[in-house]
Structures are given as structure tokens and as C-alpha cells.
């Protein structure tokens, strides 16, 4: 189990209806690639976040498949349309089966 996994998300507090906003997310995670070796020459097993999804009121915004080539503390920036007030839900799926969830509300100006 990866330790100290902490998602950080930046979503504007409010937006005009139909406006396109930029969302930035970062989750602290070692993203062990499975390529590295420890001091004894043994391979360190792969342990990464393999999928990230963002939905707004249940509708998909983006669904990203992450591979070991994504850096430590995966950072993602993307854009979303806000048709109405509601909630963004962010989900990260870890290789070890853990799921990290976070939500952010947005209001209409």
C-alpha cells in the first residue's frame, strides 16, 4: 500500500453556465516504475496509479490510463465544461487495488 497518498485539486469556486474551466490535479504517489533496482540489485516491484477519472454530476469529463512512464506525484491538467452547478468527482485507481476519491463542488455565477 502506498503511503501518504494525498490528492490535491484546483477547481474554480464558481463559473458561468456553459463555461470551460481548467482543472489541475496532483496526487502524491511514488509511481514506482518496476524498472528500478534497490541497493542489493533486486527489482523494486511496480506500484503505480494506473487510471484516473473525472466526472461531473455523473457524466464523464476525462478518463486517463497511466503507465509507468508518468512521473512521481502524477500531475494532470485538463478542461471541463460546466453546464450547471454540481460536483466534480475525481477517482484514482492504484495498482494495489486502493481507490482514492475526492469531490469538489462548483457554483454558477
Amino acid at each position, binding site marked *: 500500500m502506498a503511503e501518504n497518498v494525498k490528492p490535491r485539486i484546483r477547481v474554480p469556486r464558481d463559473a458561468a453556465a456553459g463555461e*470551460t*474551466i481548467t482543472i489541475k490535479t496532483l496526487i502524491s504517489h511514488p509511481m514506482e*516504475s518496476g*524498472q*528500478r*533496482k534497490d541497493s542489493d540489485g533486486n527489482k523494486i516491484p511496480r506500484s503505480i496509479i494506473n487510471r484516473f477519472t473525472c*466526472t*461531473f454530476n455523473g*457524466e*464523464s*469529463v*476525462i*478518463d*486517463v*490510463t*497511466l*503507465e*509507468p*512512464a*508518468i*512521473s*512521481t506525484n*502524477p*500531475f*494532470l*491538467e*485538463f*478542461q*471541463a*465544461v460546466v*453546464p450547471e452547478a454540481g460536483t466534480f468527482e475525481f477517482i484514482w485507481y492504484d495498482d494495489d487495488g486502493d481507490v482514492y476519491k475526492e469531490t469538489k463542488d462548483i457554483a454558477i455565477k
Partner: protein
Amino acid sequence: MSFTRRDTLLMAMGTAFAVAVPFKAFADVDADIKAFTGGAEMGSEGITLIAPEIAENGNTVPIEVDAPGAVSILVLATGNPTPAVGTFNFGALSGAQTASTRIRLAGTQDVVAIAKMPDGSFVRASQAVKVTIGGCGG
């Protein structure tokens, strides 16, 4: 400057090595591309890949892909031990088909982005990135 026989042999061996090594990686890249496109032809218009020309640290190289209207975008690092970097699938509420992230590059290489358009066609962009310190540990 004149070449001795020893020099010539060494150079020939070096060249053969340099040619043989990337071939394996290219085969993986081709397989990944084929799995995504099904072997379809690729255009070059309508996709932008922004990556630095020189990256000092291969552990975290910022990249940005932008393909207006795309359904999904596949990113590959052609010189990595495993070339796949990630796939971005855009949903109904994505405002613009653009995404940025940070990736690992093992060494100087081409980064390739392929976008799938709603009509089933594919477009491709690539950018060479020089890496000073590789990012795969080892």
C-alpha cells in the same frame, strides 16, 4: 587523419550496435501504435504536442497534447523501456481536448502523440526531446 584497421573495426562494431539496439524498442512502439489505430493511416493536421526541446531532468518532463475534437489521445515515448506513457479518453463534458502532465524519459528520444478522431481517423504528432539525465533509475 588516417584510420588504422583497428579503428575501422571498432567503428563498424559501434555502428552495428547503435543500429541494433533501437530496433527492439521500435518494434514495441509499432505494436503499441497498431493496437491503438488498428494499422490505419495517420494524418498530421489537427494535433499539437508541446514538449521541451531540452529536458534537464528526465524524471519529470512536462508535456501538453491538444487535438480539438479528438475522442482519445495516446502518448508514447519511443525510447523508453516500455514506450506507453498514457491514454487520455475525453468524455462528453471535456471542455477542450487538451491535457498536460509530466512524464519520465529514459534518454534523448522522440515523444509521439496519436489522436483518434470521432470519424475514426487518426492524426499523429511527434517531438524530439533531448534529455540530459535519464529518468528510469538504474
